[in-house]
């Protein structure tokens, strides 16, 4: 997949320039200096020779076949060149030129035409408005490729990096050179008119040179497809992503940058979690994680041994590990005995293992080796501070040797500057990730442990229940005929009942007398609610009354509710008052869904009342999901203890909540025209008692899903 982008045997540079200041010159120079061994064809009608290469006046003048075109001509000429590529039979092109979507209305139109042309003529495109592609090794051709205008060629390594931002990419490459971090592949895909995150994930899935995939992403055009592919790829190799725009202001910046509404932060978090993607929150974290995964394998568990030559840093590391969700391993009696034999009596033989400030390289090696041999230890964090007798370089070499001899991950934090520089270089060269502070090492180790857990978890199996979809469609169609997108309570009930939800008994009363009659039939006490398609928040206008005890009260409340509604919303269309059976007892939970612009339906769960409204104690998943994630959603909220039965209360019916979450997940997946859905509250009885939806609300799109899909297709073009 995308082979010609990474291992071409011949490359044409269209817009190659004689002027060393021009990008068209730099790209050619990079190809020459970057170790590309295939055929190279500069194309420029006004030059004869550049950097010693024969220049062709146009693409079609090249007699031999060309695998990859690198286009550096001004934006206005790009489409013509792509057309020529198609004629010449070139199926892969990198468009470095800017002047597209990012450059105003004309550019937007140009990009739209480019997308269309590329699709129709079967030319895959990386870019436009990008830095280019670098492959430090290319197995098949045996030559490297630097088809970019990056200021330097990165080192060889096993990290593949993709970036939506070219500018950030140049900074990263430059920094990686200083830090001695190597890459296998590097792609800046710019505006991503064709090749994007998903294509590159697929391309690198089986790439033997790549063991870690790292991405800087601003948005994902096709969330569900991303999740599908990422879920598969992340089972083969770690995928680490930094997603910018995670704050309101950041999201707004992305919106105006890309012209598409950013997906919500909750949706991204849930989507990454559900597809095994490791999320980095800063560029620093991105590389901390990347290096850890590139150099070491993930730990089998969360038990970590800390080896140190100083007490203070050892304690700091302990705090950091605990905070990062890792455990300090309990050192076995056997190991403690061995450590006693080799370390001074004042040492700490328990975790954190302190070999003391006067530890030389050999003593440190001994401590590290013993710790790693312990059955209870899954990973090690090795700390070193520069003290008077410390031998940093020798210690680093010893640690590297110990790390090489085990399959347990070893991460180091050799703290210090000048005195540690040499040691840090030794660690890097020997693939022991080193971090300036233990906190960063702990975060990386935690990401590795999470990844290992992901690898061990079985697929979340999505099961569906039999439903009568026609009922739902009929309700939606009826509402649309009346030009409504907000379903009334009765309609929402009908839809949810089709998916197995139970509701309290209720009936609509149009007069006070009817209200009394219905209440008598249902049995007191009852709940009464105003019914109007125009009033969405009934309780805000005092439109709900609980605990009505007798027929007289029912009549009075009917009039009261109607009066209030008329006073607060004189224009509202009032249909009457719903008289409902009052559900007593049980824990109130809320299930809601919202359609995310990038990932589609996202389901929310929380406990009713202040837990959602004030404490925002909620969890999210992208639908569809299976039972495992439904249970995790419940476990994730901080107030979950209340459901399990706190302070002697009976536990709630967790299974009923799980079933409800799964039913909602299925409903919003099968009916993509549901844009908002709220079941608030769902009353959950004690274990075995089931759950009843007391109130529900659904908002649908104006047009049926087929039209929506058609609109979506249009958008994509």
């Amino acid at each position, binding site marked *: 997949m995308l082979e010609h982008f990474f291992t071409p045997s011949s490359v044409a540079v269209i817009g190659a320039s004689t002027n060393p200041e021009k990008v068209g010159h730099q790209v050619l120079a990079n190809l020459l200096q970057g170790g590309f061994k295939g055929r190279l064809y500069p194309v420029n009608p006004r030059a004869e020779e550049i950097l010693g290469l024969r220049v062709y006046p146009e693409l079609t003048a090249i007699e031999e076949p060309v695998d990859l075109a690198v286009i550096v001509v001004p934006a206005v000429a790009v489409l013509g060149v792509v057309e020529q590529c198609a004629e010449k039979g070139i199926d892969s092109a990198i468009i470095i030129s800017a002047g597209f979507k990012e450059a105003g209305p004309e550019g937007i139109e140009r990009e739209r035409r480019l997308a269309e042309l590329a699709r129709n003529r079967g030319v895959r495109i990386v870019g436009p408005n990008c830095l280019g592609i670098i492959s430090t090794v290319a197995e098949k051709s045996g030559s490297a490729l630097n088809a970019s205008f990056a200021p330097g060629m990165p080192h060889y390594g096993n990290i593949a990096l993709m970036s939506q931002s070219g500018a950030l990419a140049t900074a990263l490459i430059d920094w990686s050179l200083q830090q001695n971090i190597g890459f296998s592949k590097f792609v800046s895909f710019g505006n991503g008119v064709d090749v994007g995150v998903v294509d590159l994930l697929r391309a690198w899935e089986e790439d033997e040179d790549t063991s870690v995939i790292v991405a800087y992403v601003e948005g994902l055009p096709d969330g569900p497809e991303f999740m599908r592919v990422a879920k598969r790829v992340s089972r083969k190799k770690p995928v680490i992503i930094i997603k910018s725009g995670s704050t309101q202001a950041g999201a707004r910046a992305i919106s105006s940058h890309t012209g598409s509404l950013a997906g919500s932060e909750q949706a991204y978090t849930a989507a990454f979690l559900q597809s095994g993607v490791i999320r980095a929150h800063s560029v620093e974290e991105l590389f901390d994680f990347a290096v850890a995964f590139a150099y070491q394998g993930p730990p089998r568990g969360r038990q970590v041994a800390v080896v140190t030559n100083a007490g203070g840093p050892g304690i700091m590391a302990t705090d950091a590990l605990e905070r990062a969700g890792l455990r300090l391993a309990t050192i076995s009696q056997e190991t403690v005995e061995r450590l006693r034999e080799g370390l001074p009596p004042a040492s700490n033989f328990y975790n954190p293992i302190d070999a003391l400030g006067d530890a030389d390289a050999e003593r440190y090696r001994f401590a590290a080796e013993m710790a790693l041999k312990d059955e209870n230890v899954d990973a090690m964090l090795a700390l070193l501070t520069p003290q008077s007798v410390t031998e940093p370089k020798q210690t680093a070499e010893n640690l590297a040797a110990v790390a090489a001899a085990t399959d347990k991950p070893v991460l180091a934090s050799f703290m210090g500057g000048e005195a540690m520089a040499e040691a840090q270089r030794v660690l890097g060269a020997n693939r022991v990730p080193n971090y300036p502070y233990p906190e960063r090492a702990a975060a990386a180790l935690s990401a590795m442990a999470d990844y290992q857990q992901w690898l061990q978890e079985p697929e979340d199996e999505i099961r569906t229940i039999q439903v009568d979809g026609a009922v739902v469609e009929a309700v939606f169609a009826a509402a649309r005929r009346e030009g409504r997108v907000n379903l009334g309570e009765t309609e929402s009930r009908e839809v949810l009942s089709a998916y197995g939800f139970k509701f309290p008994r209720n009936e609509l009363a149009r007069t006070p007398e009817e209200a009394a009659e219905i209440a008598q039939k249902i049995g007191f006490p009852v709940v009464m609610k105003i019914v109007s398609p125009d009033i969405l928040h009934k309780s805000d206008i005092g439109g709900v009354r609980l605990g009505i005890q007798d027929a007289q009260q029912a009549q009075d409340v009917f009039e009261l509710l109607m009066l209030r509604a008329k006073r607060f919303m004189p224009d509202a*269309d009032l249909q009457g008052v719903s008289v409902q059976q009052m559900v007593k007892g049980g824990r109130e939970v809320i299930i809601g869904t919202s359609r995310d612009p990038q990932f589609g339906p996202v389901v929310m769960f929380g406990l009713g009342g202040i837990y959602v409204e004030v404490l925002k104690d909620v969890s999210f998943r992208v639908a569809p999901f299976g039972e495992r994630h439904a249970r995790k959603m419940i476990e994730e909220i901080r107030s979950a203890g209340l459901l399990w039965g706190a302070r002697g209360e009976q536990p709630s019916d967790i299974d009923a909540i799980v079933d409800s979450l799964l039913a909602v997940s299925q409903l919003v997946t099968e009916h993509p025209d549901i844009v908002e859905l709220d079941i608030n509250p769902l009353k959950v009885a004690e274990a075995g008692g089931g759950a009843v939806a007391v109130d529900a609300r659904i908002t649908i799109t104006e047009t049926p899903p087929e039209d929506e899909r058609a609109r979506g297709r249009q958008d994509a073009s």
Partner: protein
Amino acid sequence: MIVVYVGSTEPYSGKTLTCTVLGIRWQRQGQQVGYMRPLGVMPTRIGEELVDEDAAFVARQLGLETAGRDLCPVLLSPDLCHIDPATARKRLEKSFAAASAGKEVMLLNGTGSLLTRGTAVGLDGVSVVKMLDAKAVLVTRCTSFLDGDSIIAAQRQLGDRLTGVILNRVTDSARQHVEEHVIPCLRDRGITIFGLLPEDTVLHSVTVREVAEATGAEVMCGGDGMDGLVENFVVGAMGVEGALRYFRRTTRKCVITGGDRSDIQLAALETPTECLILTGGMRPSHTVLARAQERNVPVLLVPQDTLSTVSVIDEMTGKLRVREPSKVEHALQHFERHVDLDLLDRTLGLKQ
């Protein structure tokens, strides 16, 4: 000549639209139709002349060449001087003679409530009806039993000159009540009900073009989206997730927000939106503009801030009037569907 006074017991009930619809109907039947508004309260300048805005509109729709002075002989507004009843009466008689010359039907467009408006200058609806020997048709909004009162009061004043009533803008939920209680009560008193017009989406919306004109907006992109009908106005000042939620629930809307709120703008474009008004003169990012074009949603740029924009719109929608020729045709169909116009013609004694 048959003189028909279209009046009401309240302002903004649909008198002007009814005049337009009846005038067009009768013209199509081949009648010579004249029109005037005895008393105007909405002066507007056309050329050098001050005329009543509504009257000018109806005359244009009917293709009449009546001089502005005769179209609306007496114009009152807080800024214009008061005139004495005798002068007012003289002017009306003179203009009526001019406007009705050679006509078979003469439509008189009432102003405000026929019981009160114009009483001080002697040109209240009841007096005009008597003065010009007209037959009255009432157009009244009706939502509850209480609305019957003023109709009955009008009948007391007009007597046999009242031919019947058209109940306008009856909401779905009020319909049953009106049919079961209000109409029987009126019929018992011998009042003819010509029809019951339900609330109509098209008629009570404004077009994006009208919004643009009212706000004096620069249209950044428009196309045929300018004919879109706006029913709801929403100010986008919340966070994007709240906005998305709210916007999804509100259809046929115009979203008013700052030019720098690209997130709100995109949320609006993701949901059923007829147009975007960007305030503060801040231009949107070109990517947003491109998306708006793709979705065929007009983007209007106004120099004033959100608050003043809202008040301009508030003023416009408060006295929502049909001003678009396309809406007039729609209104005619709406009347034909819900009002027994043949009965109305017969009652007025029009030739069939």
